[in-house]
């Protein structure tokens, strides 16, 4: 295939700016799918993705397109995940491209992820084509959006295109621009094979399916290949392209995008960012930028019913087959019994895994409050990381505690700057930048403890800006903090699953808030329940749930014993779903209470 007629590109956008809809139009225009086959937003193939309207896993599709009066071209549209949790995957997908369509909603304008994604594309030296979408909406201000692209993102948007992906308007012009302005790939067809893995997933029939962009050389079946990061060897069984249905081809050459099946057993063997090369004639060096994805957010997942523990482990193993960035290990809690400590890229990733476990595997779960990875240095000089409050050593042996820090970029209309700065201060942030931009927009840059972001920062930001502020962040390091472990007890028994690591100064308010919250969540029982919040064994807050006085069924409806029994069974079932600590029954919501406690 002549590289001159290939274009590899992505669409980058803030969430909800219409990326998937535009992709659907491309599929229609190029005839990749007949309208009858179109399911709205074809590329978002997981049910969850379609429901949430976000792309979780990147996909790619090969489109055949002939511009008017031009030659037939192959356009490889490489989709990118649309959430900050998956920004590493975004960078890998962008590395596989020469160009990117920067899609901006005509009424929303430029938002934080627009900027963040555009910067990533600039870093990769991609040709960026600004497109203003949703111009059909009543509130559309395309001129304003173009101005923002120039002034906030800093791109020349003089020849930005206007489109309404929903109506199909302008989509063809975008494809024409991709052909005209995105440079063709420029790999060496005859060089040693060098292919970038930008996605992989597990298929129960074919094993791991690896999506690659061939940089140099050719890959074909029977070739012995090597994955450069892991150093393992495989024999290629099949290569093909998605159009969007999988089509087997005889080979993939420099500049092309497609899939490879090579008997790889797990996705952790074919990690995103790794390089595929020919074993006999390897590339001199792998594609730059490979890092192993590391979980950043941790939570305990426990089956509601103890006997589901084995099923949960099996379900986690299955998910892990398809998700190398997700981690789990057994964990035991006195309150919740046997479960797993799980690590995720971020909160959305956690929610996705949790929902998939519930939906696809029918698990009934209790999830403990998510936390981050802390770095502990002991008085003996030893340094290690701790992913759970339970693993934090005794305060006496801790010389220093460090917590992960994110650099957060917040883009907001100027009206909300005051509130946002106050929120960032409350969340122990350090201001790094405050820039008044065009059109009444302000870009605020802060370093914030990741822990606070995980807690409730985003919800608060959205509330106080009435949804107008947008956020993008990346973990950029660690800093030392005076952190303490806050513990909860009911009737003197510690509820380990409720322990949290908090900043010393907020421990008192958090402890009190948590105790009050628990008082409201724990139902009255046959005896009084004392709730205490403690730090280092010292009680900092106490509440009590008065003993239940009355729970009795009065009448027997003409000898209807069955009904009486059913009512008792229903009550008992309610209790069975609670977790017992000592003699106290604690409802599952309580284990997430930590998240919704107002620290004010």
């Amino acid at each position, binding site marked *: 295939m002549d590289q001159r007629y290939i274009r590899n590109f992505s669409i980058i956008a803030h969430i909800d700016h219409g990326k998937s809809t535009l992709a659907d139009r491309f599929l229609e225009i190029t005839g990749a799918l007949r309208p009858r086959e179109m399911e709205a937003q074809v590329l978002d193939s997981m049910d969850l993705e379609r429901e949430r309207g976000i792309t979780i896993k990147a996909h790619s599709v090969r489109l055949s397109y002939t511009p008017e009066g031009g030659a037939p071209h192959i356009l490889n549209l490489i989709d990118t995940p649309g959430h900050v949790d998956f920004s590493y995957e975004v960078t890998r997908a962008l590395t596989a491209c020469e160009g990117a369509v920067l899609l901006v909603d005509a009424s929303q304008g430029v938002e934080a992820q627009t900027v963040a994604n555009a910067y990533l594309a600039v870093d990769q030296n991609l040709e960026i084509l600004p497109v203003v979408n949703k111009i059909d909406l009543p509130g559309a201000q395309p001129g304003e959006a173009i101005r923002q692209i120039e002034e906030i993102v800093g791109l020349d948007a003089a020849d930005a295109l206007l489109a309404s992906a929903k109506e199909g308007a302008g989509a063809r012009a975008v494809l024409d621009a991709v052909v005209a302005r995105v440079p063709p790939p420029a790999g060496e067809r005859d060089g040693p094979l060098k292919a970038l893995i930008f996605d992989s997933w597990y298929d129960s029939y074919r094993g791991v399916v690896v999506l690659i962009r061939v940089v140099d050389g050719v890959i074909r079946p029977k070739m012995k290949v090597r994955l450069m990061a892991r150093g393992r060897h495989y024999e290629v069984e099949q290569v093909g392209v998605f159009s969007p249905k999988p089509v087997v081809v005889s080979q993939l050459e420099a500049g092309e995008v497609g899939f490879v099946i090579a008997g790889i057993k797990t996705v952790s063997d074919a990690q995103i960012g790794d390089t595929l090369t020919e074993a006999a004639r390897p590339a001199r060096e792998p594609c730059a930028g490979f890092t192993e994805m590391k979980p950043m957010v941790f939570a305990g997942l426990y089956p509601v019913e103890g006997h589901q523990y084995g099923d949960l482990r099996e379900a986690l193993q299955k998910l892990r087959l398809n998700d190398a960035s997700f981690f789990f290990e057994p964990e035991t809690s006195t309150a919740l019994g046997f479960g797993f400590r799980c690590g995720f890229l971020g909160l959305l990733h956690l929610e996705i895994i949790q929902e998939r476990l519930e939906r696809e595997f029918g698990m009934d779960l209790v999830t403990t409050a998510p936390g981050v990875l802390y770095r502990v240095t002991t008085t003996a000089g030893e340094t290690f990381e701790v992913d759970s409050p339970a693993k934090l050593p005794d305060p006496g042996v801790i010389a220093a505690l460090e917590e992960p820090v994110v650099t957060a970029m917040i883009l907001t209309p100027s009206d909300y700057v005051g509130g946002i700065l106050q929120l960032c201060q409350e969340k122990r942030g350090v201001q790094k930048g405050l820039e008044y931009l065009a059109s009444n927009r302000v870009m605020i840059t802060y370093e914030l403890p990741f822990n606070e972001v995980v807690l409730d920062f985003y919800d608060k930001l959205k509330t106080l800006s009435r949804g107008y502020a947008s956020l993008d962040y990346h973990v950029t390091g660690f800093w030392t903090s005076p952190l303490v472990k806050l513990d909860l007890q009911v009737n003197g028994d510690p509820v380990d699953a409720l322990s949290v690591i908090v900043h010393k100064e907020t421990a008192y308010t958090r402890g009190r808030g948590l105790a009050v919250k628990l008082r409201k969540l724990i139902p009255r029982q*046959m*005896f009084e329940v004392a709730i205490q919040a403690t730090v280092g064994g010292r009680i900092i807050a106490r509440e009590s749930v*008065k003993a*239940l*006085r*009355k*729970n*009795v*069924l*009065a*009448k*027997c*409806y*003409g*000898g*209807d*014993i*069955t009904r*009486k*029994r059913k*009512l*008792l*069974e229903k*009550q*008992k079932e309610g*209790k069975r779903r609670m977790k017992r600590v000592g*003699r106290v029954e604690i409802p599952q919501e309580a284990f997430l209470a930590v998240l919704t406690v107002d620290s004010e």
Partner: protein
Amino acid sequence: MAPLAAQPVPPGVRAVSAGRTSGAEPLASAIISESAAASGGPLGIYLHIPFCEAICNYCNFNRGLFRTDTKRRYLIALAREIESARAGGPVDSVFFGGGTPSVLDPGDVRALIARCGSSFTLDPGAEVTLEANPETASRERLEGYRSAGVTRLSLGVQSFRDAELRRLGRAHTAARAIEAFESARSAGFDDISIDLMTWLPEQTVEHWAETLDVLIGLDPEHASLYLLELYPNAPLREDMARGGWAQAPDDVAAEMYLAALDRLETAGYAHYEISNVAKPGRRCRHNLKYWSDGAWVGFGCGAHSTRDGRRWRNVSETESYMARVADGVSPVAHEQVLSVDERATDTLFLGLRLTEGVDVPAVERRYGVNVWERWGGELTRCVEAGLLEDDSERLRLTRKGRLLASEVMQVFV
């Protein structure tokens, strides 16, 4: 659908197959068959009269508005159902429940009692209770019931305060209720029960005490005290929202209940079941069957029956009940053969409603269970919480435990 045949079946050995089974099944079945005849005791008969003059805003019972022609057809169906149940067996209680059984004419009541007498062996000393609403209870009518064979009258008074009665949408006043009681006395009823409800909207502890004082002044033989239960779509909920009426807090309701027991005990009543008090020798024989592993057969729409380890219920809807019986089809909508385990646990949790408690060794003998071995941990928790007491023979709720009966009974389900 099974034809309307001789049911309930004769007592004796029944396969115990439904529900949870265990390795001990054959043994347990043997134990049952041996004692089955003894366990039920004499039968109770329940007759459901699903009609009311007005529908109360809190009531969730199976009932509808009274219409003369429907009543006529219903009584024919009821008589036919009783007739077809030629199962014999001694009967020592008949209970007319509703709805409002006092919408029936004395002649109707007499005919139904006679019908029971021809299908069953009706003990001459049988307790025959009829539920009556004060507004329908005229002296003449009550005399008629008395001579028809009703021995016991249960008056649905609910409250002796007019404001409370109005909020409940009741048709009678306190004065009318007192008049009905006095009429019943002069009609010759020497066994009268009064139903009261507490935890009513806007009711205070003092209001409740007033109602109790009127009851004590009237000196009935028996009283039933119910806490108002607001079912999810009760029209009363709407009325409460509109009127801005509230129920007292839970803890106050508990106080009201305990205060009533104190007052009634001082006045010579014994608290023998969670919701019932009686003068000596005046406990309701029929209702006791529900709590003490007894046997009863219900007739009429939605009526429930339990006998010989089987439990069944008739179709609820009046018209379909009548249609089925008219077509000679069994009106039973659902029937269940109880497993030994269900019988044992029912006996245990229902028995806890009685102040005297459950005779644990008797249950163990009858059903082959070991109560303490199986539920000891949870029962101990209840004993420690002061809700339950055990004197190695009987297991019973404490005074405090009666208000938390459901917490304790859950142990057995």
